[in-house]
């Protein structure tokens, strides 16, 4: 067996080596879960500037990067706080140019998926019948209306988007970069295949044999992967299937805390700049973090993937008790 190049580096190294200022970065491609928040925090600590973000629904990861002044452009379907409401930093940037103005190209989830799929297929665009006639299609500025030469029907052509780097958070990865993700994929695979290179943030380092025993679960071939970061808990406050649940309350705390510029700055100091890395962040979360892991690991990892049939069917677990939630802000956009 050939030994592959060991690509395991620290989160900080992965940013230093592979994400220059101005890079086009796809992030949060599984929609609400598996968002590599720890990576976003590292981009803030590394003071990256002029990033061009690509993603469908990034929950507050995009908002955080915008608030920290890291972002010049956004291609996204949705920028907000999914369970808590609007995204304050995004609002300030767009409404007041604070901390800086940004260029936004509006997408839908389908159009952002198609743009990445087009790049993954090596095609210049993919035609669709979604979004026709909308202001969204017009305002995006990169789409084109065209008539299908096959049946004369109207279509909207969605051009390919090729990220410089796609960052994927996954449950496990081997040192070569063979990364396996289960639960929602969203647009993750297209984003990875479309990118010039991929950074994998894995909850766990897997033996090479483990990924090779189930290649259907590998999301992208290792040769597209430039760096592997092994970091448990990298997605908090978003969830990672079979590893830890979503920290709903944390999103609401972020929402309340970032209502003002001062509040945002304090939040970033407390949760990003004053912490050296994700391990310190998880230690700061303390019992709260342990509880999220317990909630999601009631089912043993892998139970989900056993191929038992008929005689030994797995029985579904009953509902888990939810912890009571504090009252949340009713302000809320769509979705």
């Amino acid at each position, binding site marked *: 067996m050939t030994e592959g190049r060991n690509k395991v580096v620290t989160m900080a190294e992965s940013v230093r080596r592979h994400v220059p200022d101005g890079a086009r970065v796809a992030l949060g491609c599984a*929609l*609400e*879960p598996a968002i590599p928040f720890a990576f976003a925090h590292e981009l803030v600590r590394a003071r990256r500037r002029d990033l061009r973000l690509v993603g*469908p629904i990034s*929950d507050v990861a995009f908002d955080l990067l915008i608030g920290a002044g890291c972002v010049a452009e956004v291609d*996204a*379907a*949705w*920028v*907000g706080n999914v369970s808590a409401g*609007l*995204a304050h930093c*995004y*609002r300030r*940037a*767009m*409404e007041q140019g604070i901390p800086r103005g940004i260029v936004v190209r*509006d*997408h*839908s*989830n*389908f159009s952002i*998926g*198609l743009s990445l799929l087009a790049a993954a297929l090596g095609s210049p665009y993919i035609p669709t*019948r*979604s*979004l*026709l*006639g*909308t*202001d*969204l299609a017009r*305002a995006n500025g990169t789409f084109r209306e065209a008539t299908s030469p096959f049946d004369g029907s109207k*279509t909207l052509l969605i051009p390919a988007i090729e990220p410089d780097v796609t960052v994927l958070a996954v449950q496990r990865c081997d040192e070569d970069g063979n990364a396996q993700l289960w*639960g*929602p994929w*969203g*647009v993750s695979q*297209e984003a990875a295949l479309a990118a010039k290179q991929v950074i994998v943030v894995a909850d766990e380092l897997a033996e090479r044999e483990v990924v090779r025993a189930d290649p259907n679960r590998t999301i992208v071939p290792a040769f597209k992967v430039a760096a592997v970061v092994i970091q448990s808990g990298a997605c908090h406050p*978003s*969830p990672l*299937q*079979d590893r830890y*649940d*979503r920290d709903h309350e944390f999103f609401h705390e972020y929402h309340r805390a970032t209502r003002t510029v001062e509040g945002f700055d304090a939040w970033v100091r407390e949760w990003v700049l004053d912490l050296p890395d994700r391990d310190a962040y998880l230690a700061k979360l303390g019992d709260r973090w342990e509880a999220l892991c317990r909630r*999601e690991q009631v089912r043993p990892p892998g139970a*989900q993937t056993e191929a038992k049939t008929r005689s030994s069917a797995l029985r*579904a677990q*009953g*509902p*888990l008790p*939810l912890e*009571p*939630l504090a009252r*949340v802000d*009713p302000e*809320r*956009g*769509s*979705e």
Partner: protein
Amino acid sequence: MNVTPGEIMVAQAAREIRDGERVFVGMRLPLIAFVVAKRTHAPNAVGLFELGIVRDEPSPELLYTMGDPPNVRGATWCARTVDLMGLLARGEVDVGFIGGAEVDRRGDLNTTAIGPDRAHPTVQLPGSGGGADIASLAKRLIVIMPHDKRRLRERVDFVTTPGHGPERGWRGRVGLRGGGPSVLITTLGVFRFVDGDAVLASYHPGASVERIRAETGWDLRVADDVRETEPPSHTVLTIVRGYDPQGFWTRRGE
């Protein structure tokens, strides 16, 4: 415990789901409407979620986002967003739910930005998510909105998700194949679309035609047979309150 507008909306939304339908569920109240429909008159409805998830039974727990782990456990299909959106584009999804910051008389929704210039908005909203796709492509559409004069406008500032458009036949002319909005459910009443225009069909218990007229930003049209919205049954309220005991989605101000 008083019945909240959220609970009335959920009950009404559930009635809009027919048995056996494929439902693009979406977040918040529609999520609970899907639970109610499945447990009452529509046991064979199937739920689709834009992450790429298909479920034939609702998540056993309240969801805060569609991507919460309980929504994946017990799903029957977990694929890619484009695969799921493709089903929508092929016309295989019967009904979709959407909501927004603003809606107009024609069912067009704005979830992008308030103000005349998208590049310099008065209020920056989160954007489409999957909403614009659902509105473009589902066979019919259920719109859910908080009722507020600033939100129910003659024309929205920005059409994120297409309704019936500025004039009759607009959807067909621009090339949209989905049917557009069939109903608008607000915190005060229920509108049906007639030739693409929202017409008040019922007012919720506690509301009235006059109050709705006062809080609607367009010249209200009222159905001849306008009546009070049927309140949620005890069974439905039990399901709603059992599923969302803290009232996270059903007791907020929308």
